[in-house]
């Protein structure tokens, strides 16, 4: 599906998924420990540029994704902007008390989310799902029963989504005949979940029996796809280290706002 909206491939496509996940965790720690809004601004900016260049996704699709990121990021920082503590009042309305400090802190929190979202988008746009589970089996020695269960279950997600749509349409048709509480509210939610769950459990059970019969079980095995660590992983790690270092230096040298600690 991703192939259709991709223009070109880069070395990130060949980086081992495990490297990306590991870097993702480190990046999360880095972002939490970074208190200087200037540094974080440069980090998120560079991450945005890197994401646009290296993902190879058509700009039209990237634009949609970026708008969503900014909206979600802004929403998640609202509590801090409105109710954060601070000295210099900018705006006050009832309980809402916007101060300079809380505004900067809110933007800081938003940039944290954005940095991680940009990196996440880069990973999603350059990774094949099956590769993740194969490299977990081969490099991390994950038990095959877990990996194959995940890969089989992923194929069921479209079926689950399709069943949900069918259920909605069926309800639409029967709407005048049944009580409203079966459609909306908690009762409606439970009936939806029960329908989806019971069908999925049946399907999973049957598939599980079939897969056990075909020996998709633990034990020595060979793999259809091979994954390995390569020079591209080194390159990827180096790139992230350079990005972190450059944003650190830029944030220290060229201050955009005269605040060095968001706390």
């Amino acid at each position: 599906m991703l192939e259709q909206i991709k223009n070109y491939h880069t070395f990130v496509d060949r980086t081992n998924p495990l490297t990306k996940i590991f870097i993702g965790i480190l990046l999360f720690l880095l972002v939490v420990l970074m208190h200087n809004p200037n540094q974080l601004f440069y980090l998120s900016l560079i991450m945005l540029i890197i994401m646009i260049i290296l993902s190879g996704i058509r700009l039209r699709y990237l634009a949609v994704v970026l708008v969503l990121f900014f909206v979600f990021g802004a929403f998640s920082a609202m509590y801090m902007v409105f109710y954060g503590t601070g000295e210099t009042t900018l705006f006050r309305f009832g309980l809402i008390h916007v101060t300079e400090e809380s505004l900067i802190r809110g933007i800081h929190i938003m940039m944290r989310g954005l940095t991680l979202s940009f990196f996440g988008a880069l990973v999603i746009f350059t990774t094949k799902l099956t590769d993740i589970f194969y490299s977990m089996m081969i490099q991390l020695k994950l038990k095959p029963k877990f990996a194959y269960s995940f890969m089989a279950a992923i194929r069921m997600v479209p079926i689950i989504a399709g069943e949900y749509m069918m259920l909605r349409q069926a309800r639409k048709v029967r709407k005048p005949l049944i009580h409203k509480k079966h459609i909306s509210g908690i009762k409606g939610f439970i009936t939806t979940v029960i329908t989806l769950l019971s069908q999925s459990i049946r399907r999973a059970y049957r598939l599980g029996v079939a897969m056990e019969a075909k020996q998709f079980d633990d034990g020595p095995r060979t793999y259809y796809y091979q994954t390995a660590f390569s020079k591209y992983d080194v390159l990827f790690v180096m790139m992230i280290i350079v990005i972190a270092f450059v944003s650190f230096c830029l944030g220290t040298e060229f201050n955009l706002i005269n605040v060095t600690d968001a706390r």
Partner: protein
Amino acid sequence: MAVRKGLTLTDVLITVVIGFVFAVIYSLWGAIYTVLQPLGLHLNELAYGMWFIAAVIAYLILRKPGVALLAEFAAGAGETIVTLQFDVILIVYALLQGLACEIIFALFKYESTKMMTAVYAGIAAALITLPIDWFYGYLAEVATWNIVLMFSFRIISGALIAGVLAHLIYQALRETGVLKFVGKRKLNHDEGL
């Protein structure tokens, strides 16, 4: 069929599929959660309990060690797949919340299907990620009433949604009869279903 200890492939597959069903629901729920956010009054925290309902329901269905953790991880990972957003925070949170439920269920020796067990698990999962939120969202710098509001909303939500609602779903699911062949109650013949 010989009785095997631990999780069989079928158990794992059922758990992961339950996780993925909730991944679809989580993605839809995300819209509700986001709509409640802009006021900043933490109304979204009232919807927070939904994020770990998968762990509780998977445990109630299968009642084996590791199921809660696996289901919650599958739901979290599935959500990143469905919404096409790889989100490290989400997966770390999912793992921690699954772990919190797992600890509670281990205390009950993976036997209890009482509603209170589910409620305890929901509260534990609600509490476990608060320290990370504290550092990530600079919560020390927010007005105190706002923090208290957020914490209490989250705990209430964990108890009500991941506890009570999860148990209601489990009961309704048991009535459908699909649970006859899964988990600890598994019968010795593979017909039916």
